[in-house]
């Protein structure tokens, strides 16, 4: 068994209008089968991907935002959201949907997956990865 690598999937684009956000999520779900250390980062317009109350009826595409809530089942439990990107778009954490996971090492306690970090912290997180994939 090869050693575990740290993978970061960087999401910079709005959820709809391009296929990047949906494709990134599919890659994350497929990649989760390989037992690596996976994190997701949301910055720039990517923070819109996690907003709650999305409704895609008017644009005729699937609303895939509920799928983020399944990430915990796939053992993907670290969703880093950049504070400055939220601020620049007039968003707060209250605008984001709740994403949780059950912590196996803590009697399956339900814990939040979304962690809001500063731009400086995000730079450190990126510097700490073995692989960074940008969407």
């Amino acid at each position, binding site marked *: 068994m090869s050693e575990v690598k740290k993978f970061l999937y960087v999401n910079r684009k709005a959820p709809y209008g391009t296929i990047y956000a949906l494709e990134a999520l599919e890659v994350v779900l*497929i990649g989760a*089968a390989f037992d690596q250390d996976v994190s997701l980062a949301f910055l720039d317009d990517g923070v819109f991907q996690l907003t709650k109350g999305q409704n895609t009826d008017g644009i005729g595409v699937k*609303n895939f935002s*509920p799928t983020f809530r*399944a990430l915990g*089942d*796939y053992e993907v439990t670290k969703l880093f959201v950049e504070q400055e990107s939220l601020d620049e778009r007039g968003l707060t954490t209250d605008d984001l949907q709740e994403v949780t996971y059950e912590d196996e090492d803590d009697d399956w306690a339900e814990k939040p997956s979304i962690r809001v970090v500063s731009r400086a912290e995000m730079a450190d997180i990126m510097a700490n990865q073995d692989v960074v994939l940008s969407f």
Partner: protein
Amino acid sequence: MDYDVNGTTIAADEEGYITNLADWTPDLAGVIAKAENIEMDDERWEVVNFLRDYYDEYQIAPAVRVLIKSVKKSMGPEKGNNKYMYELFPYGPAKQACKIAGLPKPTGCV
């Protein structure tokens, strides 16, 4: 590979997954199961219904290990294990049960 349900043709892809998720009915499930050489019973319906609920909630068909883990959580370890699930669906609980449930091929099945 289309299906015929009481004279109505339901479109499916070359692997037998239906093209339009809204076409699904319990009757169709029976027809797909038959094509897979599976006889639907209460135990199999329980898994198919579980998958449909999972899709409703998360908009994805779970990968097999995620399915088994989730079944274990909601129905207990005597059902949420590989042996039980593969006995019900020999060609893969996620792939086969998703097909019968009218869902897309599971995300994360490489």
